[in-house]
């Protein structure tokens, strides 16, 4: 690959997260470099989604330090992550079911729209101008994901694979510098998976977006990611290049079990 991987932009140090007595994450440290595709893998319940929720501020770890773009992060709300350029998709599709594909993707740009509700009500200059400017950007995303034909369809009526694609579109519309994908290929057939892989690689390649990805399909993970971190029972058991991780005995044990 010819792409350039940059410096560390997200550094997680000794993160621990507890829900009451349940330890979701224990003393986890890893980093994400600019422009790379970083995969997080692990068996069910390993704490992968919790990890993403920590990164975009939905969960607040009890211990540990998060450094994003050189600055230590204080307590934050999820919408701060959006304004800092972190977008994400969800494991269970979290689209706005009553809205059209176009409107769903338009909401991705909401932090960039400045007109107030009074301007909207009166449909004054700035409100109208913003709608048009952002529509243009959104149409670029729609073209990129090849979903022109379903622009006006309410997302609730779309098949699963397309919904996943629209959700990616909504995240991309925010023009994030970091994209968190929670199982983007779960429940897809081979063809849909190939499409999704292509989109992820294209996003990474064309826009230079850093991608943090949770995925269960090992073939996909090993093929597209630059580095992989492996979690099991909330602990980190492996970290490195895909090939190294694949041959790590702890990882094999976690995935295949030990023979007794």
């Amino acid at each position, binding site marked *: 690959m010819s792409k350039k991987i940059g410096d560390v932009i997200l550094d997680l140090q000794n993160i621990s997260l507890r829900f009451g007595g349940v330890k979701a994450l224990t003393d986890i440290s890893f980093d994400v470099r600019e422009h790379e595709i970083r995969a997080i893998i692990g068996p069910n319940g390993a704490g992968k989604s919790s990890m993403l929720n920590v990164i*975009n501020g*939905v969960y607040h770890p009890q211990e540990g330090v998060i450094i994003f773009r050189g600055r230590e992060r204080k307590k934050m*709300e*999820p*919408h701060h*992550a*959006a*304004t800092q350029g972190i*977008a*994400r998709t*969800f494991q269970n599709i*979290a*689209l*706005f*079911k*009553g*809205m059209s594909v176009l*409107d769903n993707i*338009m*909401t*991705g740009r*909401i*932090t960039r*729209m400045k*007109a107030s*509700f009074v301007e*909207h*009500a*009166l*449909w004054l200059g700035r*409100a109208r101008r*913003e*709608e*048009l400017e952002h*529509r*243009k950007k959104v*149409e670029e995303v729609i073209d990129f994901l090849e979903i022109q034909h379903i622009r006006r369809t309410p997302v609730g009526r779309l098949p699963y694979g397309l919904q996943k694609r629209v959700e990616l579109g*909504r995240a991309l519309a*925010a023009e994030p510098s970091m994209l968190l994908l929670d199982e983007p290929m779960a429940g897809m057939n081979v063809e849909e998976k190939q499409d999704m892989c292509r989109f992820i690689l294209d996003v990474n390649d064309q826009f230079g977006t850093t991608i943090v990805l949770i995925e269960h399909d090992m073939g996909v993970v090993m093929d597209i990611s630059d580095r992989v971190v492996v979690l099991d029972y909330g602990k980190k058991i492996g970290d490195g290049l895909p090939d190294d991780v694949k041959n790590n005995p702890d990882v094999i044990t976690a995935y295949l079990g030990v023979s007794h």
Partner: protein
Amino acid sequence: MIYREAGQFKTSYAADQQLFPIRQDRIGVLIVLAVAFLAIPAVASEYWFSAILIPFLIFSLAALGLNILTGYAGQLSLGSAAFMAVGAYAAYNFQLRIEGIPILVSFACAGLTAAGVGILFGLPSLWIKGFYLAVATLAAQFFIVWCLTKFPWFSNHSSSGVISAQKIVIFGHEFASPREKYLLVLTLVAVMALAAKNMVRSSTGRAWMAVRDMDVAAEVIGIRLMPTKLLAFAVSSFYCGVAGALYAFCYLGSVEPDGFSLDMSFRILFMIIIGGAGSILGSFLGAAFILLLPIFLDIALPRMAGLLGLPFSNATVSHIQILLFGTLIMFFLIVEPHGLARLWQIGKEKLRLWPFPH
């Protein structure tokens, strides 16, 4: 066949994002407006204005207000009538206590007062959702009506809190006849409906719908829940407040706090359920259904009984009317749970494809 958009090409996003992208819709809306502003004032009788058209428009406005909150922003509320009461009493007091304040300014201030009260009673929405929120907004319903009865200042010390609305004078012209009042109400409702449509088709409305459909995802995208929900409460209460002011000034003339009962809140809620939650048109259709159908049945049933020679007493007819009304509500909700507006939309989609099924 007439309702086709073939040949209407959009060459810019501006053309695609206009209010009514399809030419036939634009013509249709113009016809409706022409009928409402020109034809009806020319032909309708005084009874039509004061008993049917004015209340229909006022309740459409209130339903529109509730639709913004419940249909678009997904916050269930049972306090619409109370916010109307706030608007009515606020407009009365602005007129009474501020010398020479123009009536339209009073109406606007009444809306803003209701918006302020709406924000206050919207605060629970930051912690609770759905039915629990509906119960919390009941507090608004009871508290406001109690407050207006309890403190005589609000009604300028009249007995049992009844207020008599002042005259409506705009630029030296008094709006006294039902026809004039109708035109005033119609103008305000048309302008506010347009403003509502503009809000819901822009990012304000998308933020509301995002919060309605999935608040966690909305927050992650960068929508701040608290301002978004409170804005919905404020705008919704503003609409209800203006509707309340019009209810007092243009419809009844004198109102008492108990008139703005829970029963009225429920009727407004039924209007948006039947008309279509999350639709501007639905607010009007719902208000028409709930208000006009009983009147229609009232007139039509005795005549039909007379025609068929059935020996029904008046009491029987009124019972049949209630039965029929309830049955029709059930029928429409079973045929289309998303309301009359969705039925209308499906009809239009079918027409566009006609004679092909898909």
